[in-house]
């Protein structure tokens, strides 16, 4: 079966996010005073083949753990959907 995985990788809340902080300042300087905290992350879409959704989840988690996110500064969340 084919699955599509969306892996959202974000910096951990305690880690500095220079891009987010700069965007926040820029929006404020453009006059949008109601802007709150801005954080920038990555969305990785990937397609994988697996026996079932459980196996797919296991695989995607492993890939995210080993490569897509660096646990020293990032965490990720994963959503999976079967593809026709």
């Amino acid at each position, binding site marked *: 079966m084919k699955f599509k995985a969306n892996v959202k990788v974000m910096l951990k809340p305690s880690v500095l996010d*220079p*891009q987010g902080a*700069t*965007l926040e300042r*820029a929006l404020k*300087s453009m006059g949008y005073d109601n802007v709150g905290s801005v954080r920038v992350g990555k969305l990785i879409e990937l397609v994988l083949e697996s026996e079932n959704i459980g196996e797919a989840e296991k695989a995607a988690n492993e890939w995210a753990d080993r490569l897509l996110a660096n646990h020293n500064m990032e965490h990720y969340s994963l959503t999976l959907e079967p593809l026709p």
Partner: protein
Amino acid sequence: MSVKTAVVVFPGSNCDQDNVRSWKAISGLDAQLVWHKEASLPNYDLVIIPGGFAFGDYLRCGAIARFSPVMSEIVRLAKRGNLVLGICNGFQILTEAGLLPGALNHNKNLKYLCLDVFLRVENAQTAFTGDYSKGQVIKIPISHGCGGFSLKGSELKTLNDRDRVVFRYCAPDGSVSAEDAPNGSLDNVAGIINEGGNVLGMMPHPERLAEKELGGLDGRPLFTSILRTLKGGS
């Protein structure tokens, strides 16, 4: 006539001093550094938007800089026909600001690249390139992570039809094939000019090879051309 030149400084610009230094060395004339928060730019004949990483190049290169107060003045001057030169990050900012078409994408190998490249002068009749000759091959360094020019096909045709591609990446012998564009630029585009012929954007850095001590002089005619245009004009 006297020539008034502004070099714009955004937070994160880093070739601003280099451009002042080059301009002075070549033209013998002064150039003013202008802070990005400046909301009026009276009567500058030439505005240079230098290389660097305005606002860290966060989000997209040039995306934040284009909202700086100075940009609306630059748009105004450009509409009046004054000369605007965007080099590297300056080119990226000009595209984000809509003064030039297209966008600059990540280099094809996804790496920052700093090296000498060869350019073919495609149009030697602009206000910026009169001291070159058409078809001349020049050596100029690039130094960027996002220099891959991209544009919709129909607009590219317009650019080509109107001779608005001013520089193309080429081989040392002047031939042009895709592999000569180290950044993967569409149609090997290295520099383009606007419809009015007064706004030029280019990724390569002419100021970096404009003195013998630095290893070459091929960037120099760009500045002498501008000077000739401004002194000859009005």
